C-alpha cells in the first residue's frame, strides 16, 4: 500500500528553541530545509521583527547518513570512499587528511613524490572549493555572469581531476601510504593551461564584483564577527581569517610540504561577508602560486611506501608468489593492521580545520572514527551572524559560510 505523507501524519523532526515571539510585533518564520536561498539542506527558525532577524535557531542534520557508525564496520582502507563524501567540493583534502591520520598511527612516512603531489592536489582542490562557494554565493545575490565564469573554470578542474582519478567529484584517490596511482601523461601540461585560464577568468570576476555597488551594499558590514567571537564559536579557516587573524594550519602547524613553500595568509579587516568573499579570492591566488612552485619541486620516484602492512603487492607478484597472494588477501579481508592507540590529525581544509580523531584497538577495523568537521562547528555559531541583520541578509551570510551538508551532517 502506498502511504502519502501529509502534514497530518508527518511528525515535526525538530523542536524549535522558541515558539512564541518575544515582542508583540514579532513573527516566527521557518526557512528551509529545502529553500532556494539555502544551497544546502539547513533549517533556520527565525524570529522577525519587520524585516529584521531578532533570534535564529539553526538546525542541521538533514544529510546525516551515519558516516561514523558505518566506518566502524569497514576496514581502514575500504572507508576511504566515505571520506570523499564529507566535503564533496574538495574531496581530495579529506582523503589526504584521513590517510595522514592513519599513517601517523601506523608510523608510516610517505614518499617524497606523494608528499608533494598531495600538497599540489590539496591546493588544486581548494581552488575548486572556493570557486564553488563564491559562485554560489554571488549567484544568490544575482551575479549570474560571475557564476558562469567560475563554474567554467571549476568544471575544467573537475574534468582534469577526472583524467587523474576517474571521477569528477568523489575521487577516492588517497591510499594509506600513498596514492591510487601516479599522474597520467601530459597532466601537468594541462594543469599549466588551466592555471593560465584561471588568471584570465578570475580577473573578470574581480572586475565584475569587487567594486560593484549592489554587491558591496549586500555584503559590506553584513554578518560581521570579531576575531574574539569567532574563536569563541570555534570558527577556523577563511571565516576566522576574514576577521583579521592570520590563523592557517598550513603556516602554523606545517604538514605535507607546506613548510617549503612561499605563500601568504590573506586576511580581512571587518569579518563581514565582503571580507569572506575577498579572502577566498586571494586564497585561490595563493594556491595557484603554490601549485606553480610545486610543479617544479615534484621529484621523481615511487608513490607508495614499501611497507607490506598497508601497501598492496604488485599484481604480477600476487599471481606468482604465495606470500604476495596471502599479503593481498589479508589486506583485503582483514584490512591494514593499525597499532592500538588514538590520534588526532588536522589539515587546513577549504572551510577550516578538518580533524580526524581515530581510535584503533589494534585490528584492521577502526574502533572509532570521529570527524571534526568545520562546517558543523560553523553552523553552531551561525545565529551570531544572522541576528540583527535583515531577512534578505540570511542569503548572503549563509552563502559566505559555505556550509557543506556532507561534512556538516556526516
Amino acid at each position, binding site marked *: *500500500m*502506498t*502511504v502519502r*505523507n501529509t502534514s497530518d501524519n*508527518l*511528525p*515535526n*523532526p*525538530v*523542536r524549535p*528553541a522558541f515558539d512564541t515571539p518575544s515582542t508583540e510585533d514579532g513573527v516566527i518564520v521557518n526557512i528551509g530545509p529545502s529553500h532556494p536561498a539555502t544551497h544546502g539542506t539547513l533549517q533556520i527558525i527565525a524570529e522577525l521583527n519587520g524585516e529584521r532577524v531578532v533570534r535564529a535557531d539553526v*538546525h*542541521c*542534520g538533514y544529510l*546525516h547518513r*551515519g558516516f*561514523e*557508525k*558505518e566506518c*566502524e*564496520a569497514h576496514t581502514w582502507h575500504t572507508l576511504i570512499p566515505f571520506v570523499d563524501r564529507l566535503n564533496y567540493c574538495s574531496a581530495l583534502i579529506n582523503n589526504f587528511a584521513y590517510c595522514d591520520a592513519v599513517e*601517523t*598511527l601506523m608510523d608510516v612516512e610517505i614518499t617524497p613524490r606523494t608528499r608533494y603531489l598531495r600538497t599540489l592536489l590539496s591546493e588544486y582542490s581548494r581552488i575548486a572549493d572556493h570557486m564553488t562557494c563564491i559562485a554560489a554565493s554571488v549567484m544568490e545575490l544575482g551575479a549570474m555572469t560571475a557564476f558562469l565564469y567560475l563554474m567554467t573554470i571549476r568544471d575544467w578542474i573537475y574534468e582534469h581531476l577526472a583524467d587523474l582519478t576517474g571521477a569528477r567529484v568523489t575521487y577516492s584517490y588517497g591510499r594509506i601510504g600513498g596514492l591510487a596511482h601516479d599522474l597520467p601523461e601530459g597532466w601537468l601540461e594541462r594543469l599549466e593551461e588551466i592555471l593560465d585560464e584561471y588568471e584570465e577568468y578570475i580577473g573578470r570576476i574581480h572586475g565584475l564584483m569587487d567594486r560593484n555597488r549592489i554587491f558591496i551594499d549586500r555584503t559590506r558590514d553584513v554578518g560581521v564577527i570579531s576575531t574574539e567571537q569567532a*574563536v*569563541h*564559536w*570555534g570558527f*577556523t579557516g577563511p571565516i576566522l581569517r576574514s576577521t583579521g*587573524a592570520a*590563523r592557517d594550519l598550513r603556516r*602554523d*602547524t606545517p604538514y605535507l610540504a607546506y613548510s617549503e613553500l612561499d605563500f601568504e595568509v590573506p586576511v580581512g579587516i571587518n569579518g563581514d561577508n565582503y571580507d569572506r568573499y575577498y579572502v577566498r579570492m586571494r586564497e585561490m591566488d595563493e594556491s595557484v602560486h603554490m601549485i606553480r612552485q610545486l610543479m617544479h619541486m615534484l621529484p621523481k620516484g615511487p608513490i607508495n611506501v614499501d611497507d607490506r602492512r598497508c601497501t598492496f603487492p604488485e599484481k604480477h607478484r600476487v599471481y606468482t608468489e604465495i606470500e604476495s597472494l596471502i599479503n593481498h588477501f589479508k589486506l583485503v579481508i582483514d584490512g591494514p593492521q593499525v597499532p592500538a*592507540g*588514538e*590520534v*588526532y*590529525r*588536522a589539515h587546513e581544509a577549504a572551510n577550516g*580545520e578538518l*580533524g580526524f*580523531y581515530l*581510535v584503533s584497538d589494534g585490528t584492521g577495523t577502526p*574502533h*572509532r572514527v*570521529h570527524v*571534526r568537521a568545520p562546517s*558543523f*562547528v560553523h*553552523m*553552531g*555559531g551561525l545565529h551570531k551572524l544572522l541576528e540583527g541583520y535583515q531577512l534578505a541578509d540570511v542569503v548572503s551570510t549563509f552563502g559566505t559560510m559555505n556550509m557543506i551538508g556532507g561534512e556538516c*551532517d*556526516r
Partner: protein
Amino acid sequence: MSADLLERLRARLVDEGREAAFAHGLLAVQIPREALLDTAKLLKEGFGFDLFLDVTAVDWPDRDPRFDVVYHFYSTRDHVRVRLKTAVTGTDPVVDTLVPLFGAAAYMERECHEMLGIGFRGNDDLRPILLYEGFEGHPLRKDYPKEREQPLVRYRE
C-alpha cells in the same frame, strides 16, 4: 616556544596528580571527571588554549568505566593542541558542560549527547541536532545495531 608551553603545562598537571604525556604531536591528559571544568579553565585562562576544537566519546562496552569523553583544544597563539580525556561509567555517563567557557561546545555537546548518550550537566539545550526528535537510542554506542532503522517518514512500498 610552543614546546616550552606544553612542557610547562605537563609539569603543572603532573604536579596536580594528573597523567599527561606527549602522543602523536599533542599533549594527552587523563583527568577524573570532577576536574574537567577546572582543567578546561586552566587551559583557557592560564595557558591560552582559546579554541575549543572538539568533544566526542568512545564506547568501550567491555570496560568499566565504559566511556571515554574526549576533548581537543588548540592554542591560536602557540599553535599546539591538548587532548583531555575523562572516563565515565555506563550507569552515570555525565560530565560538566563547557558551554560557559566556549560557545563552540554547545553544538558539539548536543551531538555527543544524541550519538553516545553522554549527559552534560549545566547544558539545558541538549536537543537532537543531527538526529530528530523522538529518535530512540544512541547510534554510536556499540550496542546499537548498525542495521536498525528508524525512519521518521515511512519508506515507499
